[in-house]
């Protein structure tokens, strides 16, 4: 980075400012009417399937996905390839299994889906808490990453003040997008972001292949060499080791990813803004197509980073390789200081910046919507809040969520908090996924079962995560010097997902025994609403 000219930084800064100005303007213009809830939460169902699909893909591919997946592929090869496949398949699974009934059952938030047969404040509160616990960690990890990322991109000395300033700037922008733009405004930004992301990735991937005369074999050979791992680069095991425990951990990690990522509330929330069932299907087709294309590109980019940058340089800049994409773009552009190098680097930096902004804005909106709709409108006001009040509350909760996230991100910026991403995905897989599948497909599901799944799954994932090897006991953990790793894995999914499902089942059985009348009522409500769930029938 030292050879990097100040001219490039000026161009990057101008690009960032332009991106921010344009997206802010679009956000304000697309913003919802002041007293229209449906418009704020769903944008009047007015998006075409293509646009909605791009917005779903935009929400799905977060900055964490772009940067860490490239890094993991660059550093671990085969394990990273499997991660790219599971990331794409998670959205496929959402499309096949949940998307259509979810669209029919939901209205604005996850709480609407879960509470449709089980009215009551307890369900709303649980839905809100789980939404927060799944989105906030993700938000914090990306915001705290924003600090080191922006100082890296702009080549500012890694002083704490500069990083905090970057976090606050990104956080403030994110609050503005979420509070002013609502669902429609953030959808616009997601669309811009996904177009830029795919465009830049195609160029970078093409340049990588071009460097090796379009021969995949040559790229792979160079990557094996550059990674320093040799043939092991193309075999499973670099990420978590090849011991029996490491392999089990790897399986657990992949299963958690495939079940958890697509269930996260900020992604399912986009489904409610589809017009009808064929529209949600077409939207998801576009989203899956886009995400799969990106996953193919990320495989090429990650391998290219290993081949051209080399893992020594990558780990020197960031042990998790999150800067590998940027380093690759510096490498590909040609001689340092040349026009090509500057242009490519600025494009990739701009793409990373807009990806970061849009993904944190989407998550803030999801968390704030749940607070305003589930907690305020339904739990506090028992469903009797004025739409106008709820809108105002939603805007203010965006501010509150944003400020809390900025505060947390600033606090943890010196720690290695990548584990929070895993935590969010684990909660998605162990609490959200069981709750949604039971609620949509099992007529014997009861209120106790729902609460047990949500609280049990989330608490199980959280507890196991705290005592996992990702938090303490290993050199790459959050607290490398402490030693309270009672759970010998990096991911909790293998235990916490079955636990979440089991909790829901046992809770429902308990209700069938103890409160037969209640559970019959729940079953009746489910059957009564089945036509709507399956056919969108009135």
């Amino acid at each position, binding site marked *: 980075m030292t050879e990097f000219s100040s001219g490039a930084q000026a161009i990057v800064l101008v690009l960032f400012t332009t991106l921010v100005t344009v997206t802010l303007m679009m956000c304000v213009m697309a913003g919802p009417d002041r007293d*229209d809830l449906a418009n704020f939460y769903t944008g009047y169902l007015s998006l075409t399937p293509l646009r909605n699909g791009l917005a779903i893909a935009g929400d799905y591919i977060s900055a964490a996905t772009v940067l860490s997946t490239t890094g993991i592929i660059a550093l671990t090869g*085969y394990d990273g*390839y*499997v991660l*790219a*496949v*599971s990331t794409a*398949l998670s959205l496929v699974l959402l499309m*096949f*299994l949940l998307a259509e*009934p979810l669209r*029919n*059952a*939901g*209205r604005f938030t996850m709480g*609407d889906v879960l509470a*449709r*047969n089980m*009215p*009551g404040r307890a369900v709303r509160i649980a839905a809100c808490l789980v939404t927060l616990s799944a989105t906030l960690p993700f938000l914090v990890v990306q915001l705290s990453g924003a600090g080191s990322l922006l100082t890296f991109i702009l080549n500012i000395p890694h002083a704490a003040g500069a990083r905090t300033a970057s976090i606050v700037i990104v956080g403030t922008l994110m609050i503005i997008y979420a509070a002013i733009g609502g669902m429609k405004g953030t959808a616009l930004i997601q669309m811009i972001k996904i177009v830029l992301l795919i465009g830049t990735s195609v160029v970078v991937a093409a340049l990588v292949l071009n460097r090796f005369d379009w021969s*995949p*074999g040559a790229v*792979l050979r160079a990557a094996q060499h550059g990674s320093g791992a040799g*043939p092991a680069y*193309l*075999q*499973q095991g670099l990420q978590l080791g*090849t011991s029996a425990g490491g*392999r089990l951990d790897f*399986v657990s990690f992949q*299963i958690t990813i*495939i079940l958890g990522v697509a269930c996260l509330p900020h992604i399912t929330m986009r489904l*409610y803004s589809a*017009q*009808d*069932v*064929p*529209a949600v*299907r*077409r939207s998801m087709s576009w989203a*899956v*197509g886009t995400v799969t294309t990106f996953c*193919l590109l990320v495989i090429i980019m990650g391998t290219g980073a290993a081949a051209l940058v080399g893992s020594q340089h990558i780990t020197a800049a960031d042990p998790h390789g999150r800067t590998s994409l940027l380093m690759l773009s510096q490498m590909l552009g040609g001689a340092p200081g040349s026009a090509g190098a500057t242009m490519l680097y600025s494009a990739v930096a701009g793409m990373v910046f807009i990806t970061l902004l849009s993904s944190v804005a989407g998550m803030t909106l999801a968390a704030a919507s749940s607070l305003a709709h589930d907690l305020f*409108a339904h739990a506090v006001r*028992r*469903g009797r*809040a004025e*739409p106008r009040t709820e809108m105002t509350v939603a805007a203010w909760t965006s501010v509150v969520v944003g400020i809390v996230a900025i505060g947390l991100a600033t606090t943890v910026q010196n720690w290695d908090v990548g584990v929070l991403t895993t935590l969010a995905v684990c909660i998605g897989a162990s609490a959200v996924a069981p709750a949604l599948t039971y609620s949509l497909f099992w007529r014997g599901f009861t209120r106790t079962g729902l609460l047990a799944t949500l609280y049990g799954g989330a608490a199980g994932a959280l507890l196991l995560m705290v005592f996992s090897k990702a938090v303490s006991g290993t050199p790459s953990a959050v607290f490398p010097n402490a030693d309270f790793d009672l759970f010998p894995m990096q991911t909790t999914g293998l235990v916490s997902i079955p636990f979440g499902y089991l909790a829901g089942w046992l809770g429902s059985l308990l209700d069938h025994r103890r409160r037969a009348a209640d559970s019959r009522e729940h079953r*009746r*409500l489910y*059957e*009564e*609403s*089945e*036509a*709507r769930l399956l*056919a*969108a*029938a*009135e």
Partner: protein
Amino acid sequence: MTYADENRYPPSAPAGWPPPHLEPHGIRSGHETYGQSSWPESYGHDVPRYDSYGRQAPWDAAYAHGTHQYDDDLAALRSAYRVLRRISTLTALGSFVVYVVLSCYAPGLMGSKIIGELSPGMAWGVLQLVVTFAAVSWYGRSAQRSVDPLARAVRERAVPAGRNAGATR
């Protein structure tokens, strides 16, 4: 749009829903009834979604008398959805689980070189991504063929008896 039979037995969930203006938010009320006059074209969009508080329905008992035809349609739709869901989900999830398990426990097989640097493991991974495009389009076509007609039938049986039939925005 009067069906004597169905008016005698108000069929189902829909009848159990209070008119839109009773909904606590009243937000969608302007749009909820829209689209029903032009029924067959609109695919149930603008249909109001759930609101847990809107269901203190006085017509609950009516459900017990739901017409047989309607129940049959719903059962057919339910099983069509179930078949589609099971086939597609199990294929996607199953192929991936086999892939991960083989990668972990048969590294020799998955890491062996077939052409140049290409190993079965890499080929499988990339192939799975490529096949995804085909799988998604297959799913769309199957759903259109097996599920959509049944869903349309269920909606058509549900709507004529509804109080809002013919209402416009």
